[in-house]
């Protein structure tokens, strides 16, 4: 089952593209990382999937075949918006009861236990918590709903490195325990490197690349060789990024198969996930042809 599926999803604001012709599918059980610069359209995509925004064109479905914002979608998706909005004048305990009252199911015991572990007092006003604690509170509320899909918009932005690790650890534990699927956006890459199963790169409202991270890493190489040959070689390969350093050229290319021959005088290196993300973020003109995604295949 695909927890997220979009076809030609487009959003225009006053004539400007926020999201343009975005087609992707994310299977259940994945942690999908949505990366892109600020203003790339990440929030627009996430708000659309959460049911807060109606697209200008195209379609989106969540949790199989539910329209975003439908009762079934709202019931099964927990969304934590950017800056983790909480009612600043309500106590942490009130936020728990509020969320419990607004949802069909809510694991109050789990939420209280997690807050106790985090050292967040129930009596404190949500507005008096630190930014990191507010993020953890919002995540705790979201997870206590036992959602099938968790959508997080820039959850790591306000956190120090230690809090980022704790936050991701909480998410990964919930994935292991409850079979949760996660889509999270970020403009910082290193933290996601080791945890993401699926990568979506957006730039200026357009999808640069989307796919399973392992598959993407296997399909890309860095080829290093003489700069003099680079231009002619570049025509026969699909070059994502072309960097020259004197007589040397470093080409990040998408290969058609592992048996692709490396020409004499050239060296082939595997690509790291961060190199891959940066290459696609940097090269807005050279979108890779998207691999058609198997929409019917059962979850792995």
């Amino acid at each position, binding site marked *: 089952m695909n927890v997220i599926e979009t076809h030609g999803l487009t959003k225009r604001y006053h004539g400007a593209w926020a999201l343009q012709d975005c087609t992707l599918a994310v299977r259940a059980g994945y942690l999908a990382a949505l990366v892109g610069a600020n203003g790339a359209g990440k929030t627009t995509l996430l708000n659309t999937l959460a049911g807060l925004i*109606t697209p200008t064109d195209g379609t989106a479905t969540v949790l199989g075949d539910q329209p975003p914002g439908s009762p079934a979608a709202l019931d099964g998706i927990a969304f934590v918006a950017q800056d983790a909005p*909480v009612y600043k004048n309500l106590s942490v305990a009130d936020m728990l009861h509020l969320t419990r009252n607004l949802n069909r199911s809510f694991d109050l015991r789990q939420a209280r236990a997690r807050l106790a572990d985090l050292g967040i007092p129930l009596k404190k006003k949500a507005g008096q918590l630190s930014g990191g604690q507010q993020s953890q509170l919002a995540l705790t509320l979201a997870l206590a709903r036992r959602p099938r899909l968790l959508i997080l918009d820039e959850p790591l932005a306000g956190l120090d490195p230690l809090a980022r690790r704790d936050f991701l650890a909480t998410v990964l534990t919930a994935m292991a325990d409850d079979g949760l699927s996660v889509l999270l956006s970020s403009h910082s890459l290193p933290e996601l490197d080791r945890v993401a199963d699926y990568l979506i790169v957006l730039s200026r409202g357009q999808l640069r690349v989307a796919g399973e991270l392992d598959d993407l890493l296997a399909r890309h190489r860095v080829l290093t060789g003489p700069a003099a040959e680079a231009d002619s070689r570049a025509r026969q390969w699909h070059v994502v990024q072309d960097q020259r350093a004197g007589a040397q050229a470093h080409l990040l290319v998408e290969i058609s198969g592992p048996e692709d021959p490396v020409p004499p005088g050239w060296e082939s290196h595997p690509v790291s996930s961060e190199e891959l993300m940066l290459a696609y973020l940097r090269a807005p003109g050279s979108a890779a042809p998207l691999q058609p995604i198997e929409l019917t295949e059962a979850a792995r």
Partner: protein
Amino acid sequence: MTVLTMPAQSGASGPRGPVPWRRMAWVTWRQHRAALVGAVGLYAVLAAVMLIAGLKIHRDYASLLACHPLTSSACRALSNSLGSGDWHMGNAVNIILQLAPMLIGAFAGVPVLARELETGTFRYAWTQGMGRDRWTIAKLTALAVVFALGAGALSQLNHWFYQPFAQQQGMTQFSAAVFDSQGIALAAWTLAGFTFGAFFGMLIRRVVPAMVATIVAYAGLDLVVWQYLRPHYPVGGFWPAQCIEAGWLLILSVLLGAATVWLARHRTG
């Protein structure tokens, strides 16, 4: 990560069916406690003042009616007392009663949606299982009913409280001071004030500008009704005219409420 990606259909927890409406009662109370306590407190203080001052006013008025001869200095002193101190009190209460619907609109109606939109918390509220339609409808209905019922009760008390002045000043039941704040008109104006506030809060999305818009719109409507509409009611009696006024105000409120829910549903971005 491969270890962690086995999708398990989490055993559907919790009861089937949508989140019950009644859960919105606690949500509305907790989030709008200050507005509810403020409005009910205002009503309670007004009621207490009207009771205490009303007893004295009625005593003074009864003495004045019993006073003979009317030209005597004793009777003139009673008349002066009713015309100054008592009259000021009656006037003040009446002005507050007439302003109450506008204040409830601006300070209780506007924030229901505008504060959520201004602070971004609507992204939390509208993505919970309750859904934004039911969240909006339940809150607006519950708050509107409480405010209107309070105003309705207060205007019944005002029948008794204001009666000496109305009689002494020779006011008819259609004088603005009587018609607006008695019968069922005050409850209907409170309903309209509140829905004006909610509507402008949703439309403008900012608390302070929406408050200004609410006050301007409410005052404008009041003026137009008083000047142009009310003299043309096709009936002569107090209660039929009250029913006409309350009727179209109720229709206006329902339309504004529906427009507010529509705007909330279609808000994008």
